[in-house]
């Protein structure tokens, strides 16, 4: 199978699996390489993740405001009627799971891909991201029961020489103290405080 077909299948399977497993929702594919109706809306909650390795690019999801509120309401088991931080965060986490599932499917083929962290986006940026250039674009529109619609947009280039090789993930870490040093320091500090406490308690 061509890499492009593998990527297509990986995304579609991952969208279905993520929504089914997390929320018992069965998404229906409305349009393949759609017109981008969901991102044509004025109010859009979008999130994007960088991809690196055998394929390089960006994976985004885009919900209209109402769909975003409805899906995050379902995630949290409570009614959310207005856009708040949880809505952006929840949409980002859905994307994170879709990207993770795609990565897992592709790992079974010969395409190694690393995923970054979800970054909040908007209509203008997503439109900019899916503009025509030499990259391969996938823009699929889905609808779930409970009136939840969204688009999944992938734009990528094949990195033939790196296909199959596992690269280090994009670094997100800024360090001053190593994790181990930090833990040791905090535990030592607590120990000292406890000892001081005990000394003070002595008559």
């Amino acid at each position, binding site marked *: 199978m061509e890499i492009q077909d593998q990527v297509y299948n990986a995304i579609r399977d991952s969208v279905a*699996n*993520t929504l089914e*497993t*997390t929320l018992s929702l069965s998404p229906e594919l409305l349009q393949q390489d759609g017109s981008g109706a969901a991102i044509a809306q004025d109010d859009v909650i979008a999130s994007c993740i960088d991809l690196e390795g055998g394929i390089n690019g960006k994976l985004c999801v885009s919900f209209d405001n109402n769909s975003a509120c409805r899906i*995050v309401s379902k*995630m*949290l*088991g409570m009614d959310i009627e207005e856009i708040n*931080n*949880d809505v952006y*965060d*929840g949409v*980002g*986490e859905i994307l*994170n*799971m879709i*990207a*993770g*599932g795609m*990565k*897992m499917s592709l*790992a079974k083929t010969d395409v190694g891909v690393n*995923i*970054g*962290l979800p970054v909040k986006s908007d209509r203008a940026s997503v439109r900019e991201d899916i503009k025509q250039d030499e990259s391969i674009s996938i823009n699929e529109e889905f609808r779930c029961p409970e009136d939840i619609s969204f688009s999944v947009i992938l734009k990528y280039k094949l990195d033939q020489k790196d296909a199959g090789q*596992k690269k280090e*993930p994009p670094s*997100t*870490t*800024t*360090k001053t103290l*190593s*994790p*181990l040093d*930090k*833990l*040791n320091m*905090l*535990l030592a500090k*607590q120990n000292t405080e406890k000892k001081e406490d005990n000394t003070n308690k002595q008559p």
Partner: protein
Amino acid sequence: MKKILVVDDSGVQRKMIIQIVQKAGFANETLEAEDGSKAIEILAANFEDTALVLCDWNMPNMSGLEFIEAIAQVPAVAGIPVVMVTTEGTEDKIAEAKAANPNLAGYIAKPFTPDVLKATITPILEAAG
């Protein structure tokens, strides 16, 4: 009853995990951290009565892998059971996590059902009493 520390950069995911834990009937107090660095601070202050850490991998500032690698090296906290809950579900990543923390008590790939989380944490929390 001992505490459960939930580490994930998504606040929504942390809330979903905590809801599953509570619905499964565990009344343990829950603590939350949005990255490995915050998790270290919280664990250092609560290590004596923490029964379980549920930990994401991909987070800003300090990843879950760096966090579990650090705690594996410090005897005071090395025995606390850690379950990874992450989108990094490929075999090489699971092996990498086990190498970083040989005491890893479980590995859950996202997306997961409530039943999978419940089945993984139940024996750990029952053993902790």
